[in-house]
């Protein structure tokens, strides 16, 4: 195996509270290979979002270290792109202007940049909405703009924090398919947080299970479904077995027994 793109080594994090600390993550270690799509599944409160922010350099862990291309991460990285659950589009900017924001912060924009951004929006089927404001976009379209914004910088690593969690099931399925296609075409390395086991099985090469409080890594499950994936594969017995395996893994971490 080649050197991993991203490595988390014994990452722990505590949030300070008034007179004590609240542990959120404990001793999380794993690595992410290039071109790999990994999903992190966990219950709410298991520190998923904390983990993602630490990996992306938005949060400094209390203990442990994250290595990106072998170099310790201290602060946000230019080569790591984010997609957040709440789309984080600026309401005063049109879709195109929102997509251009990351570039705009780095340099003076020229015509080429605009053309590239327009083309990228068109690839997502949004050419008619380039000049629309976020309030004029549906949830699915807004999330596609966010995805375009993140991908336009060609990040080496894409971190997604429950990107489609707020969308209805149908739109969500569609966007998951588009995401898979995009990642395959670009050989995009990605790590996605989700609380949907199905989504994880559908998308991932590998599923990391995070559970408990503080969140601990309970296991890593290899998803050996063939690619390209189809929704139909989720009905295969193989997928069912994976789903129950992940579910069992989730249960081992939670202190309270599941209600019968």
């Amino acid at each position, binding site marked *: 195996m080649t050197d991993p793109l991203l490595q988390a080594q014994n990452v722990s994090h505590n949030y300070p509270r008034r007179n004590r600390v609240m542990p959120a993550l404990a001793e999380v270690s794993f690595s992410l290979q290039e071109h790999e799509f990994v999903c992190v599944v966990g219950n709410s409160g298991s520190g998923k979002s904390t983990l993602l922010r630490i990996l992306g350099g938005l949060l400094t862990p209390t203990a442990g270290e994250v290595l990106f291309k072998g170099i310790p991460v201290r602060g946000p990285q230019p080569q790591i792109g984010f997609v957040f659950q709440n789309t984080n589009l600026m309401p005063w900017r049109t879709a195109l202007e929102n997509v251009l924001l990351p570039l705009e*912060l780095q340099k003076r924009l020229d015509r080429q940049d605009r053309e590239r951004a327009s083309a990228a929006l068109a690839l997502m089927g949004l050419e008619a909405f380039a000049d629309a404001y976020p309030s004029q976009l549906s949830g699915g379209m807004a999330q596609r703009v966010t995805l375009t914004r993140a991908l336009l910088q060609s990040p080496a690593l894409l971190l997604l924090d429950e990107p489609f969690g707020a969308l209805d099931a149908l739109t969500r399925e569609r966007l998951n398919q588009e995401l898979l296609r995009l990642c395959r075409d670009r050989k995009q390395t990605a790590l996605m947080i989700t609380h949907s086991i199905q989504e994880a099985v559908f998308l991932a090469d590998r599923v990391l299970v995070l559970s408990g409080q503080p969140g601990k890594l309970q296991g890593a499950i290899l998803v050996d479904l063939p690619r390209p994936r189809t929704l139909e594969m989720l009905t295969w017995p193989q997928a069912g077995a994976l789903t129950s395996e992940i579910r069992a893994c989730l249960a081992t971490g939670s202190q309270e027994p599941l209600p019968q």
Partner: protein
Amino acid sequence: MKDSSILFPGAPADEGTDQGMPPAVEQPASQRQRKSGRVGDWVARHSALAAFPFVLGGALLLWEALVRWQDYPVFILPRPGHVLQKALAMAADGSLLRHAKATVTEVGAGLLIGLTLAFILGYWLGRSRTLDRILSPYLVASQTIPVVAIAPLLVIWFGSGLLSKVLITTIMVFFPTLVSTIIGIRNVDPGLRELMRSLRAGRRQLFLKLELPAALPVIFGGLKLSVILAVVGAVVGEFVGADVGLGFLINLGRGVLDTPMIFVAVLMIVLLAQAMYWSVTLLESYLLRWRQLGLKDSD
């Protein structure tokens, strides 16, 4: 839309599943296409503006009728005609312009200083909870002192010239804009702050590309209040001690029982305040175009 199916061959066509595509984008086009009934359309969309001449005419008629019916002497209640005559006379001899100019200067200078201070201090108070906790009690306490009550002091200290009026106006203008700036900066979406951090935005970029545009809608609320208070501040200052200005004209008119002159001065003050308010509103609707579209959808 066809491009997407070439790139994502398996993906269903784009129309359909994405529900709730708001029609706002299409709307203006369909309005433009309709040719008939342009006047009717205009009245329907600007009903307040269309009604204004009638309201104004009605009020003037009532005024005129009241004076005729009660037969008031001019120093109690002049007719609209008298007031107009006086206004024309004052415009002709240049006194109206001179006094109006003085008030406008005070308002302008007071706004410039007061708003600048309010923006700068408001920004830092919005950014720092600690600074806010230390300074806010004094700022609030300062607002409980009625400006009218300390205006004489300011005139004693800084003379009856321009400076004392500018100071009074500055004080009047300061607080609403300060408060709205603090709230505006404080309420910047933390998600967007995180986004800017993940994109490694600099301090200046954070301000220009996020904080300022995000706070602007709230700041405008305070700004509208401030510009009206600016006119009040200047006039109050002129009441207390001045030899020029619209407030001085009112004082003068009271002294010599020239009631039409008082009316002219009041009218000018109202016009000035209105002009200020509507300029800010116009600027707001221009700078916050994106917001009107948004409101249309969510309503």
